[in-house]
């Protein structure tokens, strides 16, 4: 890494924490004019946080941002924009019922005026989009009528029109097809040649190989080094940097389910979600833990919702041989669902731990005629609070006062109280501290040993490797590989998930 004289952006010693969780620690990032810099790291490594700081959505706790030799302060998105920093966000922030032209020019001088001539604005928008992206778009269409890829075009065109000094693309290719990726790369190279500094965030290492000049790698909110494909580094080298030396936190040492345990209780056949998942087939037998993993954007986000009847899908999800059509149906046939967004979908924040634990088994724990039995609820809750080490060990504590890990344990306890024998866990330990993780892993393993079937959907590679009997890898909406526990390693999974193929002999592992 050379510090050229044409250094454009220099982020030094950036620190950021949310509450007590430190997300970025002394992170450095340097970008030269006319350079494409790749920014990579595992999910949760801090890439998005760093970018949000640079674009004014978050403010940094400490550290310095220097742009073209001057220290700048970025507190709001407008500050970043004024400095010539443009970003294409991973979440497309668009107003659905505006026309393409209105969205394209929103807040810019081209939308100003006391008498907008719609036809003229739309003609200009069409021309601008064609010029900047090389693609045609109906400027009179409403934004929510467009495909994801077309919506992406608006954002690209908008960013390019602002004539930025620094352009940030956050996972820009996830919704794009191959030829559209090529188009995008054409635009990126064109801008680079004009001296724009470009930060390109992607999980797809192959793409980075063909577009970037240099790569900065983050791990757990820290810099772990730079790499350059041009200088001869390989994808394996980058993966090595991303993963580092793993600390094994799987102390529970589960004995792998050795014998095949009979007929599957959860079966997915050609399960598809429009635009997200494509023909997923998998089975989970009693006593088995099956993990599905993939990068964000691969469809992994919606899999658990689709399986548990919370999201419309085609194909079928069979629980105990019967199709799951609704979330209530899933639960009534002894299915348990621990959703990924526990604040939103999992826990009743203003209720007590006891109420949360008893919520799914009021019938079982109650008296006749639907009357509640707080005494019985308390007994069951107390036992589970002990078993899962939920802290504080007070069943009448309000859930919102618990830490994320303890909240998650409470959600898990809810299903333990009900005695569910098929568990679907979506990102079971995201935002959960290490100690709670171990408890959650131990409980999942214990349940499996007692004969429950568990489907774990997770982007956490260590978790997947440490926990599962079988690991299935999702890539762009399809299962591309199945690895038995003995063959699954974080390196191999990341390789598969980020490139769609293994290092060598890609088809050998696929024994689905």
């Amino acid at each position: 890494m050379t510090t050229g004289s044409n250094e454009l952006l220099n982020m030094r010693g950036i620190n950021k924490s949310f509450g007590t969780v430190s997300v970025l620690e002394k992170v450095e990032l340097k970008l030269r004019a006319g350079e494409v810099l790749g920014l990579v790291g595992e999910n949760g490594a801090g890439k998005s946080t760093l970018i949000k700081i640079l674009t004014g959505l978050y403010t940094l706790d400490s550290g310095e941002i220097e742009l073209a030799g001057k220290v700048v302060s970025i507190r709001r998105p407008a500050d970043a924009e004024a400095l010539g920093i443009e970003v294409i966000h991973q979440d497309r922030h668009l107003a659905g019922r505006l026309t393409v032209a209105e969205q394209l020019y929103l807040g810019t001088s081209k939308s100003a005026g006391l008498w907008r001539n719609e036809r003229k604005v739309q003609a200009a928008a069409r021309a601008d989009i064609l010029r900047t992206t090389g693609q045609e778009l109906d400027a009179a269409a409403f934004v929510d009528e467009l495909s994801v890829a077309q919506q992406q075009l608006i954002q690209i065109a908008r960013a390019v029109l602002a004539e930025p000094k620094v352009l940030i693309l956050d996972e820009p290719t996830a919704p794009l097809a191959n030829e559209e990726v090529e188009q995008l790369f054409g635009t990126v190279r064109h801008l680079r040649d004009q001296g724009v500094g470009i930060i390109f965030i992607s999980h797809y290492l192959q793409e980075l190989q063909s577009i970037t000049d240099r790569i900065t790698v983050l791990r757990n909110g820290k810099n772990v080094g730079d790499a350059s494909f041009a200088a001869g580094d390989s994808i394996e080298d980058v993966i090595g940097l991303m993963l580092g030396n793993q600390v094994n936190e799987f102390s529970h040492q589960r004995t792998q389910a050795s014998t095949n345990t009979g007929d599957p209780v959860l079966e997915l056949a050609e399960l598809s979600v429009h635009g997200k998942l494509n023909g997923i087939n998998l089975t989970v037998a009693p006593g088995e833990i099956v993990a599905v993993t993939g990068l964000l954007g691969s469809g992994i986000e919606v899999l658990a919702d689709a399986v548990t009847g919370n999201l419309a899908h085609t194909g079928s999800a069979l629980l105990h041989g019967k199709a799951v059509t609704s979330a209530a149906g899933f639960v009534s046939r002894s299915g348990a669902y621990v959703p990924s967004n526990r604040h939103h979908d999992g826990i009743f924040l203003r209720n007590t731990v006891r109420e949360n634990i008893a919520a799914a088994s009021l019938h079982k724990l109650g008296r006749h005629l639907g009357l509640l039995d707080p005494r019985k609820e308390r007994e069951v809750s107390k036992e589970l609070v002990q078993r899962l080490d939920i802290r504080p060990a007070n069943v009448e504590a309000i859930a919102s006062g618990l830490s994320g890990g303890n909240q998650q344990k409470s959600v898990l306890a809810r299903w333990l109280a009900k005695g569910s024998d098929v568990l679907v866990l979506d990102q079971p330990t995201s935002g959960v501290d290490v100690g709670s993780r171990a408890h959650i892993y131990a409980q999942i393993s214990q349940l499996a040993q007692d004969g429950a079937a568990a489907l774990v959907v997770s982007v956490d590679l260590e978790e997947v490797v440490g926990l599962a009997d079988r690991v299935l890898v999702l890539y762009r909406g399809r299962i591309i590989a199945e690895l038995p526990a003995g063959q699954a390693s974080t390196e191999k999974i990341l390789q598969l998930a980020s490139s769609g193929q293994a290092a060598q002999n890609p088809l050998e592992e696929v024994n689905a």
Partner: protein
Amino acid sequence: MSSTLTPVSQDPVSAERSVRTRKPSFAAWIGYAGIAAVLLLFIFGSPYFLTASNILTILTQASVFGIAGVGLAIVIIAGGDDVLNGGIDLSTGAVAGLSGTVTALAAASGTPGFLAVLYGVLVATAIGIINGISVTLGLRPLLATLATMGVAASLELVFSQNLKIAVTGGFFEAARSSVFLGLPLAAWLMVLVGAVGWWVYSKTSWGVNSYAVGQNPTAARVAGLDPRKYRLVSYVLSSALAGIAGTLLVARLSAAVPGIGTQILLDIILVAYMSMIFSRRRLVSVVGTILAAIFVAALDNGLTLLGVASQWVGAAKGLLILLVLASVTLRGRNNR
């Protein structure tokens, strides 16, 4: 490595990447058909319905909740049309009533008519400023304006001592009966409010920005807009327009009638939301609100002409709201 790309990278999204054809769905026509059927029923049911003088009566009636409705429409545009968390101004009816009472009291104590009206509108605007500040501070619009609705309704009773206050004098007499180019003054005022509202919210960047802020505040912020500005202004405008509507009501009835504000609230909300069915975007609009106000006034008028007992008018309007919501909802579902 890229030379050995396997078919795995087939993108599941690529199947749906063309612009969906935009044709009005079946559900879209249910709303229009309902309106047409109702109007035809009136035209054939009463020979008097389509006469010039009756149409002027309808327009005059429409003007009160048409003008206040435009104010509410602006609030919904900039706050979003989510009924629970979006933009809503429940105080609008009570503010109209308060403005009318203040105007009538001022006129009764000898203030010139024009100044009396100005006082009424200023009091209304003050409440709008409170609403706007509350909402930009992060209070839920539904609750914040429910609170000011209570305050305004109570002040109205305090000022009027729960008595009807008659207004006399040339100014209000003229406002009631003067006709310009064949249209009464109130109707002209509604046309003016509609035209200016249409210009601002359909033709200027302020309008586009307001719609953007209402639909997706994050998208607006990312585009460098400040949602608070557009929302604050929308509540002030809503109350000011409600104030004007209140003074029109006083002129029409020749008196300030206590409690009338809460009675017209439902009509104001109805016309603002009903404007969605006149909009290509399925969004609340200024012109749609005026059209809806005229339709609702015609509904009141037509049902009376047909001899439907006034007790049933509320039921008819209730069904109408359901029809409109169903039409908009079904249309939205088809398009998504």
